[in-house]
C-alpha cells in the first residue's frame, strides 16, 4: 500500500519537474536566442533613429518608428479596452449578476478570446473600409482594442467575482447605489487584479502582428497622426526576418530583444504599482 503511494508520488513529482523543465527551458532558450543574436546588432542608433538605406528593411538607422508605433498602438488599444472592459465587467458583476444575458456575454467573450488575431485583422480591415479609413494608427488601435477587449473584460469579470459579497453588502447597507458600490468599493478592492488584467491585454496587444498587418500598415516614419500608417515591432521583426540579408536578420533579433525589454519594463512597473494598490485590500 505505502509502496504504491510512494511510486505514485514519485511519478507525479517527475511529471511536475519535467513540465517545469520544459516551460522554463523553452522560455530560457527563446530569451537566449533573442539576446545572443540580437544584442550584437543592438546599438543606440537602433533605438533613436528611423530606418535608413532601403525602404522597410534598411541596414542603417534604427527602429524608432516601430518602437513608438507599437507603444502608440498597444497603449491606445489598452486604454480603450481598459475603459470598455471595466464597464463590461462591472455590468456583468453588478447589474446582470447571473442572468441569462450575463452567461451569454461571458460565453461570447470566451469565444472571442480564442479567435486568432488574423481574423480580427481581416474584420478590422472590413470595418475600416466601411468607415472609409485607410491603414492607419487609428485603424490599428481599433482592431487591437477588439483583440484586447475580451481578455480585459473576462479577466476583470473573474477578478471582481472574487471580491467578498459582504463588501458590497456593507456598502449597500449605508444606502449606496449599485453604481456607487461598483466604483467606490469594488474597483478599489480589486485594483491589483484589474491592473493584472490590463497587463495581460497589453502583453497580447504589443506582441500581436497579424491584427495590425492590414489595419495599421507599416511605415518608416514616426506615428504622428492617427490617420497615417504606423509601424510596429512585431511586424518589424517579421519583415526583417524575412530577408536574405544577414545584417537585417540580426536586426530582427535586436528588434525582438527591444520588444522583450519593453514588456519586461511594463511588467515590473505594473508589479510595483500592484503592490501599492494592495494596501487597502480586504481579505
Amino acid at each position, binding site marked *: 500500500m505505502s509502496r504504491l503511494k510512494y511510486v505514485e508520488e514519485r511519478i507525479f513529482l517527475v511529471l511536475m519537474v519535467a513540465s517545469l523543465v520544459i516551460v522554463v527551458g523553452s522560455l530560457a532558450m527563446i530569451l537566449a536566442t533573442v539576446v545572443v543574436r540580437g544584442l550584437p546588432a543592438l546599438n543606440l542608433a537602433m533605438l533613436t533613429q528611423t530606418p535608413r538605406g532601403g525602404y522597410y528593411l534598411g541596414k542603417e538607422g534604427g527602429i524608432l518608428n516601430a518602437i513608438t508605433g507599437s507603444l502608440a498602438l498597444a497603449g491606445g488599444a489598452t486604454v480603450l479596452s481598459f475603459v470598455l472592459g471595466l464597464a463590461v465587467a462591472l455590468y456583468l458583476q453588478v447589474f446582470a449578476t*447571473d442572468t441569462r444575458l450575463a452567461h451569454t456575454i461571458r460565453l461570447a467573450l470566451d469565444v472571442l478570446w480564442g479567435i486568432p488575431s488574423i481574423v480580427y485583422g481581416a474584420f478590422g480591415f472590413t470595418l475600416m473600409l466601411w468607415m472609409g479609413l485607410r491603414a492607419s494608427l487609428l485603424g490599428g488601435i481599433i482592431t487591437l482594442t477588439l483583440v484586447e477587449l475580451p481578455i480585459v473584460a473576462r479577466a476583470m469579470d473573474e477578478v471582481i467575482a472574487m471580491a467578498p459579497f459582504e463588501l458590497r453588502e456593507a456598502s449597500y447597507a449605508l444606502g449606496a447605489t449599485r453604481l456607487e458600490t461598483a466604483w*467606490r468599493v469594488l474597483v478599489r478592492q480589486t485594483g491589483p487584479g484589474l491592473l493584472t488584467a490590463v497587463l495581460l491585454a497589453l502583453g497580447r496587444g504589443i506582441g500581436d502582428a497579424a491584427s495590425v498587418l492590414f489595419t495599421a500598415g507599416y511605415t518608416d516614419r514616426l506615428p504622428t497622426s492617427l490617420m497615417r500608417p504606423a509601424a510596429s515591432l512585431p511586424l518589424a521583426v517579421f519583415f526583417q526576418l524575412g530577408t536574405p540579408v544577414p545584417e537585417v536578420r540580426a536586426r530582427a533579433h535586436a528588434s525582438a530583444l527591444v520588444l522583450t525589454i519593453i514588456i519586461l519594463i511594463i511588467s515590473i512597473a505594473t508589479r510595483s504599482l500592484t503592490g501599492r494598490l494592495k494596501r*487597502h*485590500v480586504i481579505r
Partner: protein
Amino acid sequence: MEDTALQIRGLNVAYGDQQVLRDITVDIPARQITAIIGPSGCGKTTLLRSLCRMAELVEGVRVWGQVIFDGKDIYAPQTEVTEVRKRIGLLAQRPFPLPMSIYDNVAYGPRLYGIRQRAVLDEIVERQLRAAGLWDEVKDRLHAPASALSIGQQQRLCLARGLAVEPEVLLCDEVTSALDPLSAQRIESRLLELKANYTIVMVTHVLRQARRMADYVLFLYLGELVEYGPAGEVFNNPRQARTRAYLAGEFY
C-alpha cells in the same frame, strides 16, 4: 408606552420554496433595545435584514407583508430602497471594513450624500469614532488601512461607519459573536449609550447578553413569533411553554 419606530405587519420571507418567516406582526419601540432571541436557524438574521431591505439581496428570496417606518411601508413600490437603508442601519455579524483607510471608511457614507468639505468630514469622523469608542485607539493613524485593525476594532469601525450616515434605527446581528470578551463588552456599552438617540434591534443567541441589554424581547422559533414583551416579563414570566423551554436551555 413609548412611541413605535417600526410596525411590522404580516411579514413573510421565503428562500425559494422554503418559507423562513411566517406572518410576523409586532411593534418595535423607539429608542429602546429590542433583542431578537431564538435557536440558530429560526430566522433571526432574516428578520433583521428584512427590516432594512437587505434580505432581498439574496438570489431567489421573496418578501411579502409590511414594515411601516415613519408612516410609510418600506416595501411600498414608490419607496427608495437607498433611503430606507440610509435611515435604518445594519451592523453585520462579521465586520467588513471597506477597502480604504480608517478615515475613508467613516467618511464613506457622508460622501455618498454629498458632503465634501474637509472640515465637516473631519468633524463627523471624529464624532462617530468617539461614539463607537474607537477614537483614542486610531486618532494617530486615521489614514492607515482599515484592514490592519484587530477584528474588535473593525467591528467598532463598522459601527462608526454606520452611525456616520445618521440612521434612526440600528439593526445589530450578533455583532459581538466574533469578538473577544473585552471588545464585546466595549460594543455592548456603546450600544447602551446609543439607545438614548437610536432605536436598536439586536439579534443575539447569548441569553445573558439579552438579559443585560434588552428592554424588549422577541422570541422567534421556526420562523414564527412566539412571544414578545418587556424583557423582565419575558425572562421572568414567560407565557408560552416554548419560551420557557428555550430559556431553560432545553434547546438551542
